[in-house]
Every structure is written in C-alpha cells, then in structure tokens.
C-alpha cells in the first residue's frame, strides 16, 4: 500500500503583486519499506516539498494538491490540529545542518528525553523519569553511539558533525515513525562519515521496515542507497523511476545531463577532458521561464516546450518531457 500518495502538488509563495509558483504540480508516491531519493539542484524546491509534507510551512505559502493522502487519509480535508496529530505520529524529519538544529543551550540528554513520547512510558509517575532516561539511552544505542553517558551530558558544540547527525536521527526515531524524511543528511560531511550515516539509514530501513525519503542535491551520492528516485528541476517534476532505470537509461535530457556530468559515474572518459554540462544555471524564482522550466538550457528544446509537458508513464518510469530520450535507447 502507498504510505504517501501525492498527485499534482503545487506550492505558491503569496506576495504583494502576484503569487510565485515555487513548486509546480509535482507527484510523489512512497510505498511501505521503500527508500526513495528526491534529487534536484539547490533551488529546485525539494526542501519545500518536504516541508509541505510535514506541514510546517507558514501562511505565506499556499499548498494545493489534487490528491494528498497519507495511508488513505486525505490530509487536505483535515483541520490543522487533526493533520498535525496524524503527521507527527508517523512522520519524522531530520534537517540539513544538525549542529544548527540542536539547541545549543541544553545538553543532548535533555533534548532527547524531551523527544520521547509520554505514551511509550508505563508505570507510576515516580518511575517515569528513570524510564525516560533509559529510553533516551536506548535510542542512542540504536543509532550506534555506545558511550551514551558521555553523549547525554555533552552540549551540541562538543560533538562532531556526524555525531550530531546521529543524535538528530535518534530524536527522529523516538516516535517510531513509518516515514523518515532525511533532508540532505550528509551535506558538507567527509566521505567516511557519509558512508556511516547512509549505512545507518539503510539498516533502519531493513530492520524496522521504515520508509525513507532521501533528499539530496547530488545524484551520484544517493544512487547506491535508493530503490527509486524522483528528479526535480526548478520546482517541476522531471522524472521518476527505479534507480537502475534513472541511472542507466534516463529519459529526460536533464537527468541525462546530471548523469553525464558526474566524473564518478563516467570513469571511462579520458582524464582532463571536458565534462558534459548544461549551459547557464538554475533560474531564480522571480524570472521563471514559461512552460518547461528547463527550456532555455535544454539541448533538445523545441517550439512545443513553451507549454509545460504532461507526465508520461512507461511501465512505472514517469517522465515529463515532450522530446524524451526513450526512443534513443
């Protein structure tokens, strides 16, 4: 069954003159026990999408969707309180900069204990304090921190970035979520630490059957860990499919360019040759091109591209392009 089923979600930034369409009709489904990658360059609206799922966008943003279902419940019809109750029970999120997201003035232990839910504790009120401590220590063990006593006593600035990220994951696990949204969990981390965090997430996925939405700006970093990938560009849906399809036979020119531009994925190209790349850079929100937003940078763009293309589905491999590369394979 689909955990999360989003069809044509749009997010608008309400401004004085005219609203800006930051995310334009993006679809996303997450099945139970699946790791889905959400890939896009910075400014492509992937963090916005994650925040819209959690429901933490303030009133300056307007979220619209044709379908926004969480395990069969239509979230768009619920009131804010009901929605909060549903989402906070089953969905957790870890944010980009762990150091900045933890409270610098309280110890890790206190912050973790705060995250532990009251309902998980059994016993009389004088036992609860102890149980809470135990639960926090258990959470730390779960994410691979063995020396929990030292860790609970320290402040965020005393820990390394990778440790902070582990603490963030521990906090997210406190509610035993069904879906974990990881917003660039390894941005600006060393490769060894990156490996550790990804392995931790993968083991959680396998052991607890927890679904993960893995958000990243770099296609090459996530391909090993994901089952399926959704690619976004400048707030528009580009392509979705299994990791293998996306990586080996991308249908969209943008995904093709992403794969080609990575020197890791193309180890056969000669050293110091020019890398394939798209001209220009991602457009800013104030000056979005009409139709397909890749248009001005796209090597295959033609007249029809001023109209936004419809999503085509080839056996679960969805692509949004008038001139897809499907026939060239």
């Amino acid at each position: 069954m689909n955990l999360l089923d989003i069809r044509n979600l749009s997010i608008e930034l309400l401004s004085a003159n005219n609203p800006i369409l930051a995310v334009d009709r993006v679809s996303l489904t997450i099945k139970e026990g699946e790791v889905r990658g959400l890939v896009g360059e910075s400014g492509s609206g992937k963090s916005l999408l994650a925040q819209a799922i959690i429901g933490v966008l303030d009133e300056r943003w307007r979220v619209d969707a044709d379908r926004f279902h969480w395990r069969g419940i239509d979230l768009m019809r619920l009131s804010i309180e009901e929605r909060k109750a549903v989402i906070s029970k089953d969905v957790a999120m870890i944010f980009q900069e762990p150091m900045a997201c933890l409270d610098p003035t309280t110890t890790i232990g206190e912050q973790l204990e705060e995250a532990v839910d009251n309902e998980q504790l059994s016993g009389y009120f004088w036992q609860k304090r102890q149980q809470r401590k135990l639960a926090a220590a258990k959470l730390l063990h779960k994410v691979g921190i063995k020396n929990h006593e030292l860790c609970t006593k320290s402040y965020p600035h005393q820990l390394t970035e990778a440790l902070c990220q582990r603490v963030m994951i521990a906090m997210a696990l406190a509610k035993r979520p069904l879906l974990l949204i990881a917003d660039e969990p390894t941005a600006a981390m060393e490769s060894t630490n990156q490996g550790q965090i990804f392995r931790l997430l993968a083991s959680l996925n396998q052991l607890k059957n927890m679904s993960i939405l893995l958000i990243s700006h770099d296609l090459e970093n996530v391909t090993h860990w994901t089952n399926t990938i959704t690619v976004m560009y400048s707030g528009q849906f580009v392509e979705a499919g299994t990791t293998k399809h996306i990586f080996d036979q991308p249908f969209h020119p943008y995904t093709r360019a992403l794969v080609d531009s990575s020197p890791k994925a193309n180890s056969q190209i000669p050293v110091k040759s020019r890398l394939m790349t798209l001209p220009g850079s991602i457009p800013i929100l104030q000056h979005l091109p009409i139709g397909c937003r890749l248009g001005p940078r796209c090597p295959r763009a033609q007249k029809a591209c001023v109209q936004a293309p419809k999503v085509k589905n080839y056996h679960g491999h969805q692509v949004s392009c008038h001139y897809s590369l499907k026939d060239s394979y």
Partner: protein
Amino acid sequence: MSALLQVSNLSKSYETAGFWFNRKMITALDPISFEIKAHKTLAIVGETGSGKSTLAKLLVGAENPTTGKIKLNGQTLHHGNFKQRCQHIRMIFQDSGTTLNPSLTIHQLLDEPLHLNTDLNEAQRSVLIRETLQKVGLLGDHMSFYPHMFSGGQKQRISLARAIILKPQVIILDEALAALDPSLRSQMVNLLLDLQQQMGLAFILISHNLGIVRHFSDDMMVLCQGQVVEVGKTVEVLSKPEHKYTKKLIMNQRFQLLHK
C-alpha cells in the same frame, strides 16, 4: 621543465595554551616535501584533521611554518613577505558566499588586489577587471553588482576571477568545488581546465571527492593525521592503492562506482 613550486621539509606544530609544564606540542603536519610543475595539478586527499588545510595555509603564507622552505621558481618565499607571495600563489575557498565582502561591489573587490600589488592606474585596472570577468564567463557589466545579486555558481566564478586577476602561477583550491551543484561543478571544472591550458597554471586541489580528483589531477598525495601516506600519479594510486588508509578512502566511495 623544472619545478615551479618546490616544498621541502615543511612542517607545522602548535603549542597548546597551558601553564609552563602543561604545555604540549601538537604536530599538525609532519615534514613534507613535494614539487609541482606548471600545467599540472596536485590533489591532496584526506579526512578532517589530516593537515590538508594546514598545508594550504602554510603555502599561502597565512601561517608561519615551524620548519622547512617553500621555493617558487628557485626563489625562497619568506614568511611575512606578502607582496611577493600574493602575486604568485592565490587561494579559492570552499564557501564562496562568505568570502566575498557583501558591502563592496565586484569592481571594488577585484580592484583591491590590483591596487595593493600593481602599479597600474585606474583606467588600466578597470580594463583588466573587465577582461578577467569575461575570462571566467561573466560579463564586464557585472562589475557594478554586489555579491548578493549573484547565484552560488557565479560567486564561485568571482572568487576565481579574484584569484587569477594577478596572473598567478599557483592556485590553491580548498574544497572549492564541494559545495556546488553537479551541473555548476562540471562547468567550473571545465573552466578551470581551460584556464590551466591558457595560462599554464598549477593547481593544488584539496578535495574529498575522488571522482573529481581522478578526473582533474595528475598527481595525488594522501594525508593522514599530518603524515603523507601515499604519493604518486593519480591513476596509479587510485588503481593500485598500497596503504590501508588509501584503500579505505577508495572503498568508501567505491560503492558509488560499483552501481554502474
């Protein structure tokens, strides 16, 4: 062709702050020697605390080395003689957004090194700034813009312009490509390679992305806790790593390669 930059026995150790007998020496970088030729790139790979940033700081003269000498074209570079060093060794930092002064226009930013290091008059400087901006793929009219008006990739280009405006011989890239988006990163790699061919620059690339290192560099050096673990041609080191630490580094990124 003789070596452009020769480094011999360079090392750095710090004294911890403490009372007399409590004082300890911490070695950030053990004695290290290498040389680079023009048109070549040396990659330095290692984890945090391996001393790669210390090495970069020593080379640009931000820190005083404990022992050792740096020679450029056979001339010894002395600590404190910035006039000589600034002209020839330039550095680009990781975070392009915060290294540009937000209260200065691009013209003022690029004018500063010229004003301090050359005898050009104002008109000549303006012409040179315009040329340099065009060289890195921006327009001459971008001169009157402020840094916040540019996107991340363009800011990185401006830092590159600031680095090459004095026609240096060595450029140090301290994780300069890490924070960029993939398509901008490949644009930047292409631009750097073009500049290397045109101007005969030598690059010192500090990075932990082995894909970029493999594509970009001729030689590589692996640092671990201040010590050189492995040196050699990039192709050879990456295909036949000998030290345990290098193998671990490659294994950590290998999973991404295996997928294909």
